[in-house]
């Protein structure tokens, strides 16, 4: 249950952990773009080196990284196979009669799956080394200027942080209601699917009722403490841009330039 409020965050003291969340968010965002610059072996090797270096520097146990990857692994393999079987370029490598494999297909398959892999690795590195609340604050500050064009940035960030704060509370409550309903004979974990679905209803109804009550109470408590929207509001959370963050950007810039020079 704790896993949910901290997201996938794995506490640590590494270079990456200590980076400003804004720097990490921007890097992840830029990385998503520059990944598409790679189009030959040397550029993919370069991206791979950057990704591996990032993982190494984060000092995260590989198990966490693998766990983050697991659900997407199938997609990567499927992408690879699709390309291998459907791209008909270059010399023929294998002919099984009903199925022909070309060199171009294998190459494309490898490239596209590597691209996916790098994207997943870098973005999960972001969530593994940054708490959800820091990510929220980072997004809020990065999007700050968008308030001028009427984007509800503050409201969005507040909504996120309240959601993060209440997830454990609601989970605890779900557990409690489940126990109460089980005590009355409801079955949540056995029986036919139809029965189990039916038993969800007496779980959801009280949960929703209480969530609305909580929302009402919370709104009142917030108003009582002088909340009146984002305008003129200060923040206790301070983001500090340091030398580390600038270093990261220089590395990213170098990577970008090398990709541009080396791509074919």
């Amino acid at each position, binding site marked *: 249950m704790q896993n949910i*409020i901290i997201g996938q965050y794995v506490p640590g003291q590494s270079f990456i952990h200590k980076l400003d969340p804004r720097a990490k968010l921007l890097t992840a965002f830029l990385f998503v773009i520059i990944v598409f610059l790679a189009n030959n072996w040397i550029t993919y090797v370069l991206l791979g080196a950057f990704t591996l270096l990032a993982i190494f520097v984060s000092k995260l146990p590989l198990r966490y990284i693998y766990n983050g990857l697991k659900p997407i692994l199938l997609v990567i393999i499927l992408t690879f196979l699709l390309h291998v079987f459907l791209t008909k370029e270059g010399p023929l490598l294998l002919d099984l009669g009903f199925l022909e494999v070309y060199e171009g297909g294998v190459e494309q398959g490898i490239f596209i799956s590597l691209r996916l892999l790098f994207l997943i690795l870098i973005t999960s590195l972001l969530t593994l080394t940054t708490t959800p*609340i820091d990510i929220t604050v980072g997004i809020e500050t990065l999007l700050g200027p968008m308030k001028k064009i009427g984007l509800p940035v503050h409201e969005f960030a507040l909504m996120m*942080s*309240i959601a*993060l*704060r209440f997830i*454990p*509370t609601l989970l*605890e409550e779900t557990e409690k209601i489940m126990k109460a309903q089980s005590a009355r004979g409801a079955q949540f974990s056995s029986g036919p699917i139809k029965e189990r679905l039916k038993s969800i209803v007496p779980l959801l109804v009280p949960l929703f009722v209480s969530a609305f*009550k*909580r929302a009402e*109470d*919370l709104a*009142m*408590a*917030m*108003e*009582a*403490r*002088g*909340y*009146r929207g984002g305008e*003129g*509001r*200060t*923040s*206790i*959370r*301070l983001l500090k841009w340091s030398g580390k963050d600038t270093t990261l950007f220089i590395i990213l810039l170098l990577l970008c330039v090398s990709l541009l020079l080396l791509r074919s």
Partner: protein
Amino acid sequence: MEELITVQDVSFRYQEDQPHVLHGVSLSVYKGEWLAIVGHNGSGKSTLAKLLNGLQLPEKGDVLVEGYNSRDEESIWEIRRRVGIVFQNPDNQFVGTSVRDDVAFGLENSGMARELMLERINESVQKVRMEDYLDQEPHRLSGGQKQRVAIAGIIALRPSIVILDEATSMLDPAGRREVLQTMRKLKEEEGMTVISITHDLEEAAQADRLVVMNAGEVIDEGIPVEVFKKGDMLEQIGLDLPFPLQVQRALSERGYDFSRLTLSQEELVNELWTLQLKV
């Protein structure tokens, strides 16, 4: 005594088509006192609390807090800064994802500079003895601890009045003691004015002054000893008398005479053994 809050002949209802919840309520709150408000469920206590800090506005009459009338739009923020409310449910008033964030919430709303905020936060968490939990998440705190954080979040704004709206009713006895002790200390040491809305007459008996509400009206007001003399009236409106008082009343019915009202166990014990001496 300096009058902090004046409620003048206030009537209120939530909706036009609904009956009035408060009928012509008048009330004064004085600086530095501990005022208990008691009354049956639905007698309008929470509604009154909401009127006292401008969460609701009177339909008739006025609410004045240190001279600010809650009807003036500009005054509302001054009033909310001066009157803090600790609500009943510890979970539903915890806004932040950590103790520090939660205590900061009100300060952030007031637009305070970060440096000053940090100072205020440290100061107020120390007053409620939660300084070791600054980074703790709410679901790892007990109910009593959460209520103490709520108090810290309010006193960080340096209000003149703290209202406890059944703030201890969802807590276990230990949590209840924790919260009440914290408030008593704040009252003694900081001269805070406390309005405690409660069902617990034993707690109310400890107050400096007592207001009894029934069906949206203030039906009695005075020091606890005086109010508790009208035990029958309190029972009639559905309140449970403090246990020591119940014992005393039961004994009086059986012909024992007491020299004074016993509101605490200690007083009762003292009365009982002196009673035996006389006999």
